[in-house]
């Protein structure tokens, strides 16, 4: 995922065609390669088709059925499930929250990821330790990281509250109830998402920063451009595709995550932090209504597809 000057041979249709004509003399070998390629690919393709494509279409089937955990017999009910979930205000709340959390997190993840990437490419002593600590949020299983935050944001014993009390922002026995007030709970969920995914964005952006030719930066330096000028007129334009990729990864992982909401607030207070994934889980697994759960989860798909296309486009921009 970096900027390159020459187009890659394999993706350039003209180059591939040229390659094919020069290889025509050893056609038999190429044919054998073709069979071999399929033999090598087949196991992975079959595995993925069986356990990703099949369940995906099954999900569409379930969304149109009345299957429940107790009664697995399949009856086609058309769009009844969709009608039922549209009538439920919690669904709209979840959809709105999903979009809000994703949008706000994405912006913060990219900005902070860029800052963090700049720190990670700098040379300093003890970098190993800093890198280790910075990676923690992303490498720790999301549910466990959320357990850590759950305690940090505890309604009575939060050390943040204690600091605020010491500084006089809170009265002696007062607490913030980080996860109990709707607005604060939403802010907390977003903060945890941003905290968890910023390191990933930073790593992706670092890859782009490292790929910028050194002489370009030096030329700008010789021309008298200061730090900010170099940042906004050289570095950021050159790494724009990588930044786009990190933005989309941040968006997709916030969008599809359930662990943070599930552990921190369980959708509460009063569904204030409910998102599509947690609502689908609540309905489909805990509530046993597979049809409705599948219908809710399917709402993730069009938005994910849009994100995937956007990723493809920015990757392609990087290659040419």
């Amino acid at each position, binding site marked *: 995922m970096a900027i390159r000057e020459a187009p890659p041979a394999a993706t350039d249709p003209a180059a591939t065609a040229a390659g094919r004509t020069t290889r025509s003399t050893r056609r038999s070998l190429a044919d054998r390669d073709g069979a071999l390629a399929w033999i090598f690919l087949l196991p992975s393709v079959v595995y993925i088709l069986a356990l990703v494509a099949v*369940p995906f279409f099954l999900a569409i089937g379930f969304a149109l059925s009345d299957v429940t955990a107790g009664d697995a017999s399949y009856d086609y009910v058309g769009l009844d499930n969709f009608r039922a979930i549209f009538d439920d205000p919690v669904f709209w709340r979840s959809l709105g929250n999903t979009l809000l959390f994703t949008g706000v997190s994405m912006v913060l993840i990219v900005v902070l990821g860029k800052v963090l990437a700049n720190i990670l490419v700098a040379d300093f002593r003890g970098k190993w330790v800093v890198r280790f600590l910075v990676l923690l949020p992303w490498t720790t299983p999301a549910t466990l990281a*959320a357990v850590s935050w759950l305690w940090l944001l505890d309604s009575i014993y939060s050390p943040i509250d204690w600091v605020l009390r010491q500084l006089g922002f809170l009265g002696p026995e007062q607490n913030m109830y980080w996860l109990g007030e709707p607005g604060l709970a939403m802010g907390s969920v977003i903060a945890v998402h941003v905290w968890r995914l910023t390191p990933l964005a930073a790593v992706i952006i670092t890859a782009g920063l490292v790929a910028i030719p050194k002489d370009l930066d030096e030329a700008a330096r010789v021309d008298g451009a200061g730090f900010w000028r170099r940042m906004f007129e050289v570095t950021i334009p050159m790494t724009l595709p990588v930044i786009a990729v990190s933005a989309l990864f941040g968006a997709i992982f916030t969008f599809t995550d359930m662990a943070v909401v599930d552990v921190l607030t369980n959708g509460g207070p009063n569904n204030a932090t409910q998102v599509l994934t947690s609502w689908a889980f609540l309905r489909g697994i805990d509530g046993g209504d597979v049809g409705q759960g599948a219908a809710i989860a399917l709402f993730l798909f069009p938005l994910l597809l849009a994100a995937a296309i956007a990723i493809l486009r920015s990757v392609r921009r990087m290659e040419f």
Partner: protein
Amino acid sequence: MASRTEALRRRYARRRVGGRIGVYAAAVLAAFLCAMPFLWSLITTFKQNRDLYNPRNNPFLYNRPATPDHLLYLFDRTAFGAFVWNTLWVGLIVVAITLLLALPAAYALARLDRPWASWFGVAIFLVYLVPPSLLFLSLSRMVVLIGLQDSTWSLVLVYPTITIPVSVWLLIGFLKAIPRDIEEQAMVDGYSRVGAFWRAVAPLVGPGIVAVIVFAFTLTASESIYALAFVSPTGEKVVSTGVPTELIRGDVFFWQSLQAATVLVALPIAALFNLFLDRFVTGFTMGAVKG
């Protein structure tokens, strides 16, 4: 003239020192913000109940002597050991399946000169973006159908769908970094393609394979939606679901033990990952660049 250059020199030196201090300050701040929750977890782990549950105490200090009791409780009285063991063996089998399937696939896409190899690689990578949250409901019905419900083996079956796509993508990058001449020479010397791969290529991608192993393992250790949906008996759970569901009983939180579990899982994974970070970055970069 001399004094002017001297002044300039000093100004640049000052700016350099200022820049250095800025870098260190930023690095320390970033490290603190990222590690803060775990730092709090670590302090909590060794606190006595009477110290912890007094909102007037300074939470960052030990107002009473530190105690390892809650850490021991985690191992003696909870199923934490079983969770860790389940995570480990599920992870290892999944990694084995992943390598077995992803390595040939990556080789085919990186080396066998198919005109469709490029978009096929991208298509496989996009599968990685299909989230468990979209598939868990139908997969849980399929798991029931196969009879693996409430068994950790259901995770062994399903997790490769997450790890194979990323691993293929990473391996394509590593394979492309190795000059073709090496295996072509081996083939000229009379080895078959498979033979050339094992004798000439495999040793060179070795470090890349290790990186993929680490990456795939951390992915399986982090997953929680499938684990939550498929498996409910305590003894069959993995770390990512067992700790938050089993160590919280109703409204009773074993806070110190919970936080101990978090730290005990977080540190080794981050350390392992840190060792291979540079390689992941190159892998992702090469996969995209040398399309």
